[in-house]
Each structure stands twice: as C-alpha cells, then as structure tokens.
C-alpha cells in the first residue's frame, strides 16, 4: 500500500509540548532506514488543530498531556474536529492518562 512512500515522505504532525520528547521522537523516526518522515510540531492542541485544518497530514502523533488538554479527552476533541486523520496517542510511563501531571512528566525538567 505504501509503495509510493519510497518517493513521497510520510507527513506527520507531532502535537507535543515537551522539547525533549519531541527530539527523541524525531531521532527515532530519522533512524528508520527505509522511510522518510516529514515531521511538523505543534506544542498545544489548539495549534495542532489549526495546522490540521489548513494542511493535509498522514497521521497525528498526539501527546496526552498538553498545556491545553489532557488525557483521552484530547483524543476525543481531536477526533471530533478532524475525524478522518489517524491518531497515534503517546503517553508517559505510569502517568495517569486522565491528569495533566505536568510535574511528573520527567525528572530532568522539574
């Protein structure tokens, strides 16, 4: 199904406010040998939605603890606004998906 992906990069929108997580993800994706990813970042859900309305992306990587939305509700809001875009949710290890829990995100930031 993705034969043309060899020529065309996969366009991803990463909605993530933590610069370290963003960097880690970019590094991981650029390490993929056979695929080219074009990654754009938005640091808040509303900014992400704005980007999705103005441009076509193949997939959204969605952090579940954003400054303006947290938990699975974030998914529901994005899905309601742009129902056809596939969403891959990202969550911090052992952090409740329902609370923003900003301080427990990463010891290296707090």
């Amino acid at each position, binding site marked *: 199904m993705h034969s043309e992906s060899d020529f065309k990069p996969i366009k991803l929108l990463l909605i993530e406010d933590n610069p370290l997580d963003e960097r880690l993800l970019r590094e991981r*994706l650029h390490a*993929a040998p056979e695929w080219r990813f074009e990654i754009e970042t938005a640091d808040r859900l509303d900014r992400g939605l704005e980007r999705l309305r103005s441009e076509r992306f193949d997939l959204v990587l969605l952090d579940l603890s954003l400054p303006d939305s947290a938990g*699975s509700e974030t998914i529901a809001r994005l899905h309601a606004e742009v129902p*056809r875009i596939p969403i891959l949710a990202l969550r*911090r290890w052992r952090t409740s*998906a329902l609370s923003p829990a900003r301080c427990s995100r990463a010891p290296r930031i707090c």
Partner: protein
Amino acid sequence: MEDERIIASAVQQGAEDLLIKGTFKTDLLVRAIHFAIDRSQARDELAVARDSALESARLRSEFLANMSHEIRTPLNGVIGMTRLLVDTPLSVDQQEMVEIARSSAQTLLRIVNDILDFSKISAGKTVLEEADFDLALAVEGVVEIFAEQAHDKGVALDCRIESDVASLLRGDAGRLGQILTNLVGNAIKFTAHGKVTVRVGTVSEAENECVLRFQVRDTGIGIPLDGQRVIFNAFIQGEDSTTRRFGGTGLGLAISAQLVDVTVEMYRNSTLCN
C-alpha cells in the same frame, strides 16, 4: 491492567493505538505509524464503498417506483378503454379479443403494482393503517377471490378460523389481505390437485394484543430445502424452472415478508407451510 484500560479508552475515543514513551524503539514506532495509516485508509475505503452501495440501492428503488408509476398511468387508460369497448356492438370474435386484451392489461397492472409496492416498502415509505376490522370477513374475503380459480382447477379450498380467535381486531386489514392473497394465490398456483387449507389460530393473547398464526397449507409441488431459504427474497422463486413453468415476478412472497416485517405483532406470526 491499568495500561490496557487506558489503551482501550484511547482507542474508543478515536486513536488507532497508544504508545508509552520511552518503551518503544524505531521499528515499533514505524510499524505503529504504518498500521495506523493503513487501518484508517481501509476504513475510509469501506465507508465510501458502503455509501455508494446504499446510494445505488436507493436510486434503484426510486427508479423502480417512478417507472412503475409511469407505466401504471397509461395502463389504466388501456384497461378503462377496453372495458368501454366490450360494451360496444362487437362480433363474438372481437368480444373475445377485447376480453383477452383487457385481462392481459389487468395482469400487467398487477405486476406493476407489485413492483411499486415492493419498492415503496423497501424505501420504508409504507404507512400502515390502524382500524377496527372483522377478521373472519377479511380472511373469507381473500378465500372467496380464489374460490372460482380453485374450483376450475379441481383443487379444494378450505378455510378454518379457530373458535378462540378474537373476531374484532385493530390493524391494517388491507395489508393482511394482501399477504394472505399472495400466500393463498401461490398455494393454488402451485397445486395441481388436492387441497389448499387456510387456518387461523391464536398463539397468545394479552389484554391489548393477540398473536395469531396464519397458516396456508397445500398439497402442491412443495419447495426444495434450499429454495425455502430464498423464496422470501425479491425476484427469486423456489426453483429457476418455476419461472418458465409458472411465470410470475417472484415479488409476491418478498412483499409479504416485507409487510410482515413492518406490520404489527399480529401479522408477524403468519407462517407458510406446505
């Protein structure tokens, strides 16, 4: 467990999957991205296919209904005029010819009405009447229609309404009559000798409703087992050879089944036996 619950909730809200940061490497991430895109694409394609299938079914129904209507209008002209023609001075030969033309037109009208009815019910445009009626009168009325035809074929036509069946009912007597007409008509059509029995019995009775069983039994050719599953489908008859031998559109039982589906509890228990 906690994680599974959260993943389930994420998927329920519309995510393709949920990844926990720091636990995945490049290969898993890339795979998750591809699966997510593929799944969502497949879902889109399915939705498009479903929508276009529904739309074309709707258009076909509408076309059928429109065509039936268009055909019916001139056909009524033919029937009306031949009816007048019969009453004018004609030779015996001519009278016979006009009579054949009239009865052919009548048959054609019945088929067109069936198609119109079928497409109307398919489109969910049937409105059922609710009025008091006498069950015995309704059932006997149908049986009477076929009395002459049965007598001519030498087939006995018997009607029995059990004594415990409530006589005054509320519902759509016309639709009930239509279903019974289709069933009894079929029974007589496919029976060369022996008899056709119409029986009505009570299955259960409550204060405000009763469930009745309508049974049409015949000693005709019967329906092969694999045919029994499809006779209620539109345009299908019990056997392919049936159409050649007996004619018909294959719509009668489909309409009956549709009517039974949309009709009140009382009609829902009509059975076809043979």
